[in-house]
């Protein structure tokens, strides 16, 4: 049922986007979006994830730091590339398919962050500007090795995680204030990934690919963009991601420079 609703929402949203003229220009009372905007950003989120056929639940907590290159392809249509560092805490994952079951409590693991964003302006309604916005981010964790110290022989586990996140939805920005643009961003927000764990204890060898998925699929972000100068602008955002038995949170801050 949930999948059907998501599919309908996506279909509606994409159809709505497609029906608009590609180069439609919007009246703007601000100049923060020019042809190229380098920037940097930080993000933190805590997402409930489920694994082993949704039998178990734990939290994935991640901190992201990235450089962002936003390029305006056409008036009202921009694309961004994100590249940076991510640190993810997978504590609570238990690997029971390895010869010796293993409980991951090793805290944060670093990785490489790669992402992309697309933003498309839609018709404004009064002081409310509407944009279609989609983001894809992946955090490719670096391989790390740990000793299994409690055994009477040498044993090791090697872990390689990654997660991906895709979000799509409309951003509704209020443009009635000077230099300050609060916005609301409801979106479909999907998170999934895998933690590959390999174990070697002498000739005992095991491997477990633990598929994870975020329990929340809808996000409501509240944020604001503030133009400090003609060149510099900063953005802050807080996200709430409800799921059946709880609420996840996300936090994001970005700064951009316009040429």
């Amino acid at each position, binding site marked *: 049922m949930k999948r059907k609703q998501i599919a309908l929402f996506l279909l509606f949203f994409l159809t709505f986007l497609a029906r608009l003229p590609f180069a439609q220009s919007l009246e703007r009372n601000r100049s923060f979006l020019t042809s190229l905007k380098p920037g940097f950003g930080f993000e933190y989120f805590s997402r409930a994830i489920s694994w082993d056929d949704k039998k178990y639940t734990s939290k994935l907590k991640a901190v992201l730091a990235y450089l962002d290159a936003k390029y305006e392809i056409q008036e009202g249509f921009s694309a961004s590339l994100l590249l940076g560092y991510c640190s993810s*805490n997978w504590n609570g994952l238990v690997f029971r398919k390895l010869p010796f*079951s293993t*409980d991951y409590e090793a805290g944060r693991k670093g990785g490489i962050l790669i992402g992309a964003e697309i933003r498309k302006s839609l018709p404004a309604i009064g002081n409310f500007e509407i944009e279609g916005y989609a983001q894809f981010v992946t955090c490719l964790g670096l391989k790390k090795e740990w000793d299994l110290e409690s055994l009477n022989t040498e044993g090791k586990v090697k872990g390689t995680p990654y997660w991906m996140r895709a979000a799509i939805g409309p951003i509704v920005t209020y443009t009635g204030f000077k230099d300050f643009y609060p916005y609301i961003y409801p979106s479909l927000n999907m998170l999934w990934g895998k933690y590959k764990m390999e174990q070697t204890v002498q000739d*005992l060898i095991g491997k477990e690919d633990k598929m994870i998925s975020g329990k929340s699929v809808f996000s409501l972000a509240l944020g604001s963009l503030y133009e400090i100068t003609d060149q510099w602008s900063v953005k802050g955002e807080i996200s709430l991601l409800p799921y059946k038995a709880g609420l996840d949170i996300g936090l994001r801050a970005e700064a951009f420079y316009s040429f």
Partner: protein
Amino acid sequence: MKRPPQKKILPVLFIFYIFIFSLGFKKTGPDNGRKEGPFPLDPKIQILNQGQPFQIKSPSYAAHEVLVKFKPFLSEKMINATIAAYRSQKLKRILHLDVYQIQIPEKASVKEMIYALKLNPYVMYAEPNYIAHIEKTPNDTLFKYQYALSNSGQEVGPAGSPRGTSSADIKATAAWEETMGAEETLIAIIDTGADLKHADLQNKIKSSGHDFVNNDDDATDDHGHGTFVAGIAAADTNNNEGIAGVAWNCKILPVKVMGKDGQGYYSWIIDGISWAVANGARVINLSLGGEFDSEALKAAVRYASEKNVVVAAAAGNDGGAVLYPAAYDDYCLAVAATDYNDHWADWSNSGPQVDVAAPGVEVLSTVPTWYFEPKYLPYGFASGTSAATPHVAGLAALIRTIKPWLSAGEIMNIIRFSADDINSSEHPGKDGFIGYGRINMEKALVPIKIKK
């Protein structure tokens, strides 16, 4: 002490949130932001969560209470006001620690309240009032005498018996938190049979088995040894009676290959192994052995191993070399005996084939109801590698239950590598007395924590 990372992010979140909204106030004027001080519970969150607790697993904390520690500079008056602002009630202030036990509103869940409290800059930490529990301990009336499973340094037998050393045991109670086995995992007790009507066994016996001595389908024990062995491996557990078995929920398949004199032909044993494999055994216990090497006996245990059946066999009790079939190293786990102080029993056979050890001195288990006079309970103490071996067989059955995809060889290695090298001061590493060490069920079954 280093603060957990998630606690560091909350003040940042709070400051960030205030920053964003204060920008709005300065520029725009309308007072639509949050005020300073504790955040009231957002009714929308309650609706979103439908009043359900945030915890996915069954609740393991008090339903309407949380423990809160406030920043030290806060006065008692301020703390009381803060608690009241959350529509909560102070139940108790824990002396010396200044931790407050507070009762939360009926409609709020513990997780919601903790979430709200953590956003408050005056709160150092807030957490559920968790419920602790003792390790899984069966209610069997004689469990207190089973030092092999849980040794607290108690007397190992009736009053006046020696006391054991605390923790000189196989860590059964911790391991039972992970699994207690399953009915599908059959342990074949290839021995003198079993008392099929024993109160602590009758519900655990899969079938009347097979008797290769008398060549019939009734493996009733006419000696007592098999009943004793079966009880250690998988006696009816948590039934308010008698003893606990290592593998609580696994079933026993009795196979009689030894006569009432405690002796049996190799051919009977070979037949018994073959029959047990064919009849669904996943683990075979052989608390028996002979001094003579036999290709046929070796072929039988090899056959079992190839069929992914784990074979545990007794090393022997005469202080000599490891008996057969235990000595068939590739196909059997050869089990030596230790005592209630985690010392090797000096009558336990030794040699390079010994894989592991388990308690085998003054072990309590079931005996046939006819064994003692009626005024005595049908339980008794005995020693030997015969008593040690079913501890290993029980562990193998528990591993098999939760990891059915593992081969017999892999299960044998898990048991080997997770053993405690209790004689490492004299014989570090694998040795001929206790092999890799005394088995440790907790290490073999409970997930090993990997930390930084």
